[in-house]
């Protein structure tokens, strides 16, 4: 029905769909719901730790690509990551800043200092520098952000480039909705979209700030209004930055909404709300993917397929009670299963190997078997379904998603032409 079917609406699926549509290809995007962007931190990681803290992500990923052949970056390559970053920046305009040659070092909601590559402008002022003075501001009715935890951990942490910063906690109580004491980040984000709320908030906070302080707030400063943070900063007369929270992630939603809207505008047909349950393969070629739509299952056929379904977190991979691991849609061969136990009992020691399991890909992002042959000539993979890395520990997931998505899309365009 479409020439290309993309399965999954996380960063990799949305980027692949946009890129294909942008090159004039007819695309259908299948997704069970909102993709993984709303679960993450809402910035773009390329490489944060290898295992030491990385300052130049693209440079370091080239080293990983040559040293670790099973790592996704070995197949993707630095050039595709570069292309992906530039492509995403061009798509999203003023929603992302930064470049592939440098990481920002930003505070997290427990007060760790986290490397990340492209950030939303509302996060930039959090980049840690020697001698900085932060007021970390919590909202009494938002339970996912505790300013004292953030401030005191930041203050006791030596900064990556040396030096220290000085952070102190501030608590304000401005209800997002009258009579509600347990408001989610999303509720606050919607409140911050309203200029009148920002006025009230600024009035409550401003008297508590000292001169020269940069203000760190939970990342809830507006969902629709991209200038909300800037307006608040002007009202306060202080630089302001956002600190990402556990899900639901408001910065992630901004990226998701923007990329989804762009995809639709470019002509991508988005089928949302139902799960892909099976695939039809004839003579080794993928013919269609069936969704469990209401009433009767429905098949979506295409000439090429992009598997952008994620890992265990989305159900793309599963392990049963006997310890057998499967890719749940195609039953694809997986890498990372044969090197000893998949989990071990020490939480703080080495990574759990289970979460590096995934499919193998070639340079064109075709899914490969153990011998290096394409499993299906028209099946490509992008993002978290690709095995070989500890995405969350490395802070490499978004770079892998971007690089593999543009590679897969470009391979398909070449193939179809």
């Amino acid at each position: 029905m479409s020439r290309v079917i993309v399965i999954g609406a996380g960063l990799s699926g949305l980027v692949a769909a946009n890129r294909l549509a942008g090159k004039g290809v007819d695309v259908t995007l299948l997704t069970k719901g909102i993709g993984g962007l709303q679960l993450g931190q809402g910035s773009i990681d390329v490489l944060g730790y290898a295992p030491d803290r990385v300052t130049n992500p693209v440079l370091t990923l080239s080293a990983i690509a040559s040293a670790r052949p099973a790592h996704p970056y070995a197949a993707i390559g630095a050039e595709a990551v570069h292309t992906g970053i530039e492509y995403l920046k061009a798509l999203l305009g003023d929603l992302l800043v930064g470049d592939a040659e440098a990481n920002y070092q930003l505070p997290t909601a427990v007060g760790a200092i986290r490397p990340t590559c492209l950030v939303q402008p509302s996060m930039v002022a959090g980049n840690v520098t020697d001698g900085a003075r932060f007021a970390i501001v919590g909202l009494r009715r938002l339970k996912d952000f505790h300013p004292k935890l953030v401030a005191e951990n930041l203050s006791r942490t030596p900064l990556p480039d040396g030096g220290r910063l000085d952070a102190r906690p501030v608590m304000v109580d401005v209800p997002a909705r009258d009579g509600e004491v347990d408001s989610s980040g999303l509720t606050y984000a919607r409140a911050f979209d309203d200029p009148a709320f920002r006025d009230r908030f600024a009035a409550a906070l401003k008297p508590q700030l000292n001169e020269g302080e940069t203000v760190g707030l939970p990342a809830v400063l507006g969902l629709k209004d991209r200038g909300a943070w800037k307006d608040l900063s002007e009202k306060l007369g202080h630089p302001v930055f956002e600190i990402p929270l556990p899900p639901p992630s408001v910065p992630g939603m901004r990226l998701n909404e923007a990329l989804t809207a762009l995809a639709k505008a470019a002509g991508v047909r988005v089928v949302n709300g139902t799960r892909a349950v099976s695939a039809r393969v004839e003579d080794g070629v993928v013919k269609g993917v069936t969704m469990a739509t209401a009433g009767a299952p429905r098949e979506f056929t295409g000439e090429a397929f992009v598997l952008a379904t994620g890992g265990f977190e989305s159900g793309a991979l599963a392990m049963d009670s006997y310890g057998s691991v499967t890719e749940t849609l195609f039953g694809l061969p997986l890498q990372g299963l044969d090197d000893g136990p998949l989990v071990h009992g020490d939480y703080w020691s080495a990574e759990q190997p289970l979460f590096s399991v995934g499919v193998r890909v070639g340079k064109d992002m075709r899914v490969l078997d153990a011998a290096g042959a394409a499993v299906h000539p028209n099946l490509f993979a992008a993002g978290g379904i690709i095995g070989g890395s500890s995405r969350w520990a490395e802070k490499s997931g978004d770079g892998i998603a971007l690089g593999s998505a543009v590679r897969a899309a470009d391979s398909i365009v070449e193939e179809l032409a």
Partner: protein
Amino acid sequence: MRKLAVDVVVIGGGSTGAGVVRDVAMRGYSTVLLERADLGQGTTGRFHGLLHSGGRYVVSDPLSATECAQENAILSRIQSEAIETTGGYFVTGPDDDPAFADKFLEGAKATGVPAREISVAEALRNEPRLNPRILRAIEVQDGSVDGWQLVWGAANSAKAYGAEILTYHSVTKIDTADGKVTAVHCTDLKNGEDVVIECGFVLNCAGPWAGQIAAMAGAHPVDVIPGRGIMVAMNHRLVNRVVNRCIYPADGDILVPVHTVSIIGTTDVKVDDPDNLAIEPKEVQQMLDAGEVLIPGFRQSRALHAWAGARPLIKDNRVAAADTRHMSRGMAVIDHTTRDGLDGMLTIGGGKLTTYRLMAEHIVDAMCEKLGEKRSCRTADEAIPGSESGKNYLVTHRLEDREHDRLDDQIICECELMSRKMFTDALATQPKGTFDDLRRQLRLGMGPCQGGFCSMRATGIALESDHIDIERATGLLRLFLKNRWIGLWPILYGDQVRQTALDNWIFQGTLDVEHLPQPESEVAL
């Protein structure tokens, strides 16, 4: 060094020790309970939470059966807050011998355990997930009990009678003079302080560790054989009643609904060290297979957590030492006067959670007899604080509480409906507690997300309470995540893998917890 003087020192803060200290205090003795960790952290908190009807023992151990039936009725009354009167079934599986149910019914009649055979159709109507191929079903009065609530209830009752409860106090030495116990030395593990307690009597209720305590007083070795049992908590109440296999007691034959989960247990393997209990993969598989017999599709249900406990069985020459299941579960009071020529100490072993009050009554009776005093036991007559209403808890009770305070308070743990006030109140009573200490009273982090969302919140709130500093707060978070993982990784499959991936995404990915300043040494207690 701190010095105390009391009539009686009780060693061990499991159900036995808590029951004993309550009984001792109610009989008018001054008393201190010493526990090296938190109350109910050893054996008591590590079993499935079954309040026996007695049914399990009607054939194998008639005396235990009768005691269970009687104590079940007493506890449901005096500790109603800790007990859900779920009721229970004994069911004959498709491949089990149906004739055992006849022996069971005879035994129940003889031992006074209320039991009634019902039709399979009735059993399936009430428990629709039960295997439809079961052959027979017998209804009994099993219940489920929150071991930690039970122990804290007894301890709070003892405190109301003047007892002192010292947790995280590890016994280091027991003094004797002229063939009599005179004092107990211990260390307050939270601050390193040594404490000496002069006393007239020691009651050793240390369960699997009772042998180690007896040795400190110079007694001949007491042969305690820890029997390891593993338990697996499933994410839902797969059943609303306790479901037992109607067979001679075996592994994996009980499924107990406790709060929002159901727990399958258990195995029984002789081990040497009660402090080192592994959760063997093959035993987990055994539990899942056993679950399939009771509930078809059990393996597709979500497993949340696994743990192991050690039974405190005293060696009994009637059976081989390797067969701990069939050693006496009945209590054994060891009289060190006749055995070792040592006055002023009794050791108690064996027993089970359901009969903990009765065990306490026996050991305190024995002590009174030695002291030549007549003070009678009143523990069965008086409700413990919090259970005066006699209303048993329901699975929905927290939901009801939150309906009342949802506009005034935040829910910090959505899985277990724990409010912010519940957490700050518990923290105020245990400012030196770890999050696991608080968990045992609040169920923090015990639901599907296993701490994924609540543990960061708990850390922030604890720090804001000003009871702890940033190093300890961060250390407690590290400790909590590590401890949750101990019970997660042995049952990591199905939907819990998916949850763990999300939790890793949050903690490693978004929060980058690993790169907080590393502690010089990890917080351990």
